[in-house]
């Protein structure tokens, strides 16, 4: 067994949320610059230039890339040889989120009750926390501050097995078309196929954080990623939805075994400020 202190978890989560909110990862910056070269719309170019400049300002001044510093989503992989000491796991994560959002001048966007009072918790907690127990003696973190302009455009379809590849492509492209300018294009589209209704959405969300420029390891799924991206970019929505040939920067599919009777397809839309950071304890 290896001991990890709750305090270490708190500090790691805090560090990662600050990093994610101030710095866009290099793979995304590269893709935005490539998009600027490829974009033919003058308004689209103007928007992309603004986005690139914005991200430079945020990182050099250590201020939030976007005012919507998001719902705090935390994916963890906990080694089964880890023994947590000095506190509670969930509490440590939430404390890390709270300190990052308070000390980093990040917006607190969480309300306690979704329907009635909608009172701000003023800490940006509770976080959405996923835990997987894995082999080993480490804890791996993937944190994602998720903005809701794009989250609100996410969809789920319980397709029939007979709908096949075409059903998936059509559903994802239709989701992006309907969303239009709302999710802050150019977007990154996470697609989860299979599993259950709930699990499909979880893997779709995690897929948005995959390295941009990478494809699914299964060539058949990678081909769907390419086909969907081409079709999305043929829609003409463009940067900020003001017309252009770059509507999405990447389509990332993940899939799971599923039931004989179904083919769940979840689409998790992420804005161009696709913020995430990873760390290991």
């Amino acid at each position, binding site marked *: 067994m290896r001991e990890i202190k709750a305090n270490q978890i708190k500090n790691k989560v805090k560090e990662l949320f600050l990093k994610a909110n101030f710095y866009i990862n290099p793979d995304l910056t590269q893709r935005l610059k490539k998009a600027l070269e490829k974009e033919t719309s003058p308004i689209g170019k103007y928007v992309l230039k603004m986005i690139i400049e914005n991200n430079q300002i945020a990182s050099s001044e250590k201020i939030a890339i976007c005012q919507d510093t998001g719902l705090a989503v935390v994916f963890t992989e906990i080694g089964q040889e880890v023994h947590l000491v000095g506190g509670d796991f969930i509490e440590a994560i939430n404390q890390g989120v709270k300190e990052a959002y308070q000390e980093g001048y990040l917006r607190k966007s969480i309300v306690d009750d979704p329907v009635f009072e909608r009172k*701000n918790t003023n800490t940006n907690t509770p976080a959405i926390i996923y835990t997987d127990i894995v082999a080993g003696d480490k804890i791996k973190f993937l944190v994602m501050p998720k903005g809701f302009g794009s989250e609100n455009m996410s969809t789920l379809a319980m397709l029939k097995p007979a709908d096949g590849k075409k059903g998936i492509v059509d559903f994802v492209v239709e989701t992006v078309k309907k969303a*239009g300018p*709302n999710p802050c294009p150019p977007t990154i589209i996470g697609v989860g196929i299979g599993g259950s209704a709930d699990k499909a959405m979880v893997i779709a969300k995690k897929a948005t954080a995959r390295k941009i420029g990478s494809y699914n390891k299964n060539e058949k799924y990678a081909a769907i990623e390419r086909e969907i991206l081409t079709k999305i970019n*043929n829609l*003409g929505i463009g940067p900020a939805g003001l017309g252009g*040939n770059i509507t999405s920067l990447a389509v990332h599919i993940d899939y799971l075994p599923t039931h004989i009777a179904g083919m769940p397809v979840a689409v998790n839309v992420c804005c161009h400020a696709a913020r995430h950071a990873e760390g290991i304890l």
Partner: protein
Amino acid sequence: MRNIIKITTPLNNGKIINLKAGDFVNITGYIYTGRDAAHKRLFDLIKKGLELPIEIKGQIIYYVGPAPAKPGYPCGSAGPTTSYRMDPYAPYLLDRGLKGMIGKGLRSKKVIESMKKNKAIYFGAVGGAAALIARSIKKSEVVAYEDLGTEAIHRYYVEDFPVIVIIDCQGNNLYETEPPKYKR
């Protein structure tokens, strides 16, 4: 690149008629912020026929919930939020003399009809360009609903605040006219 048109607030019909969908505009002067919770409160007052806590005649409301200001900054990162959530309330504010809205994303038919009737403009700011946009906000003060925190109504003094006219007072809509040019 197109020319940038400079305008100052408050707005009037004379200024608004000259702005066309697709114009790049820099705004200087005072603007107000308001998003979901503040709109709901303003709407409740209008429904009861009561006075609003701010005079909105001739003014612009920016749909934003800013990040907190770092010490030494007048305002935190402050990009637009998605506008459609304010659609149920916007026509009532336009009827009370609101002349401009800044946000991002689609508007309902009802809002566009009300904009045509009341001669108002929908400006788009670039979503996610929040740190860049904040540079044009020189002063910020809360003028109503302080208890709402980030959703309180702030009054900003802005200089050359960068926007694009998305929907003009004739109802011309950039979201409808531009994307088809790039559709394949």
